[in-house]
């Protein structure tokens, strides 16, 4: 099913913070409908990489190209104007933060949070926005009677599901997820992983998933990249890397986790 041209190509992406290295010479290719997990310990450069890829941070070196909807060839995102990045990031892209408070507007009701992207791209019909909000509340298993409540009154798991709905309402092709299950208790995590997997399948989303949880990576991703100190140590099919790790660090990582 893969098309001849990848959706996202990163080539030698580096970003440092003064003397501290964020990520160093990272290259990757993401195809349409594929889930790529980026794993590694805290400070390994996963989030820096994710922020570079999603246009939230500009890399010091390297090139990131994204193939926009309806276009045959990828475009260098460094050449896009700020307004184009903004349009991409709320139509074709989604970004799920670890802390839902960063991705949600806490002073706006659940329905308003979901509808924001639709209004941002110019929908001016209340009934349409409302019905899209209701549909998406249902799709992420949120009770419909909470639609006019603010997320301040939601539990952690509900907030995360609302954040997912808010991103998916614009039918994005590529979703960046930064530790989407972090900070939730185990049973809520399991339900959330199920939900994400269902939505990814239904909508054939491409996902770049940053996580330190190998179990989450194994459940959701087809391919995996292991990072440490800003560099990619090992990459390949998820099952292959986790069942038969080659790099010593990956072996350590796999051994240290109860799978």
């Amino acid at each position: 099913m893969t098309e001849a041209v990848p959706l996202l190509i990163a080539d030698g992406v580096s970003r440092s913070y003064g003397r501290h290295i964020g990520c160093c010479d990272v290259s990757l290719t993401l195809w349409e409908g594929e889930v790529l997990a980026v794993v590694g310990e805290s400070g390994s450069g996963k989030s820096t990489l994710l922020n570079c890829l999603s246009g939230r941070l500009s890399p010091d070196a390297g090139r990131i190209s994204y193939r926009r909807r309806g276009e045959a060839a990828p475009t260098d995102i460094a050449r896009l104007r700020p307004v184009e990045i903004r349009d991409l990031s709320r139509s074709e892209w989604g970004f799920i933060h670890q802390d839902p408070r960063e991705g949600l507007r806490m002073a706006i009701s659940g329905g308003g949070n979901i509808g924001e992207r639709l209004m941002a791209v110019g929908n001016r019909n209340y009934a349409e926005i409302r019905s899209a909000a209701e549909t998406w509340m249902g799709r992420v298993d949120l009770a419909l009677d909470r639609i006019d409540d603010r997320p301040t009154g939601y539990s952690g798991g509900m907030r995360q599901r609302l954040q997912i709905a808010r991103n998916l309402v614009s039918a994005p092709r590529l979703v960046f997820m930064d530790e989407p299950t972090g900070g939730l208790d185990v049973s809520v995590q399991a339900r959330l992983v199920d939900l994400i997997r269902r939505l990814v399948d239904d909508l054939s989303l491409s996902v770049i998933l940053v996580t330190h949880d190998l179990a989450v990576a194994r459940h959701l991703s087809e391919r995996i990249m292991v990072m440490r100190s800003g560099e990619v140590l090992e990459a390949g099919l998820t099952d292959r890397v986790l069942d038969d790790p080659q790099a010593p660090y990956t072996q350590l990582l796999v051994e240290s986790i109860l799978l």
Partner: protein
Amino acid sequence: MSAAPGYNFAYLDEQTKRMIRRALLKAVAIPGYQVPFASREMPMPYGWGTGGIQITAAIIGPDDTLKVIDQGADDTTNAVSIRAFFARVAGVATTEQTSEASVIQTRHRIPEVPLTEDQILVFQVPIPEPLRFLEPRETETREMHALRDYGLMHVRLYEDIAHFGEIATSYAYPALVGGRYLFDPSPIPKFDNPKLHQSPALQLFGAGREQRIYAIPPYTDVVSLDFEDHPFRIQSWTQPCALCGAEDSYLDEVITDDRGGRMFVCSDTDYCVSRRAGLRNGEAAE
């Protein structure tokens, strides 16, 4: 009447007035854009109209006639004080009649009598940024203005409809100027928003504490935001003004006793007074 000695004409020094006029020219050139200016300390607290008073000081001349209104009334503390201030430091003529004024400084209302090309309306603005309570970061709101990225404003209107069944925002109702900049028309009731549209008079907005000036040049489009299925509507009342019988003016509810007695009267006192005078003359002529 001449200005009190010891003050430069209209209180501010000439360099300050020049600076404000430059900001005003830029504001008129880019309708609805918030121009920063070096707001001065004025002999009154912030929130009492320091932005409006600085604009008035910068544009007023010895031949001008000044009218000041506060909530539509000429006889409230703020209006009386500012009128007295300019009478003292600029020696200008003052009036309570809308049609006789060349400069009108206002808080919370636009006069009911249609303005003309020979008049300038100066608004006192507490919060110039319409996106302030939706997006607290000023760096972000500036970028949103630069990119004409105003979907967020509709989120607020969405919230109104979701919670109250209609757009409940009744004052400081957001509008788009000249098809480009979203702006906050200061806390005027949305009843007055249609008067901003294609107004023959120059409209200037000054926010002293926030150090911003913006403007709507004469005959500029001003469109209030709404949804297709929830169009913009102004307030309406079930009864006319209890004093002058006007059915086309903005009415204040006045409590008359402690047993639930109330009446609705025009908020624009000049409009109400002149209508009553007209009625009396009409009766006398019969």
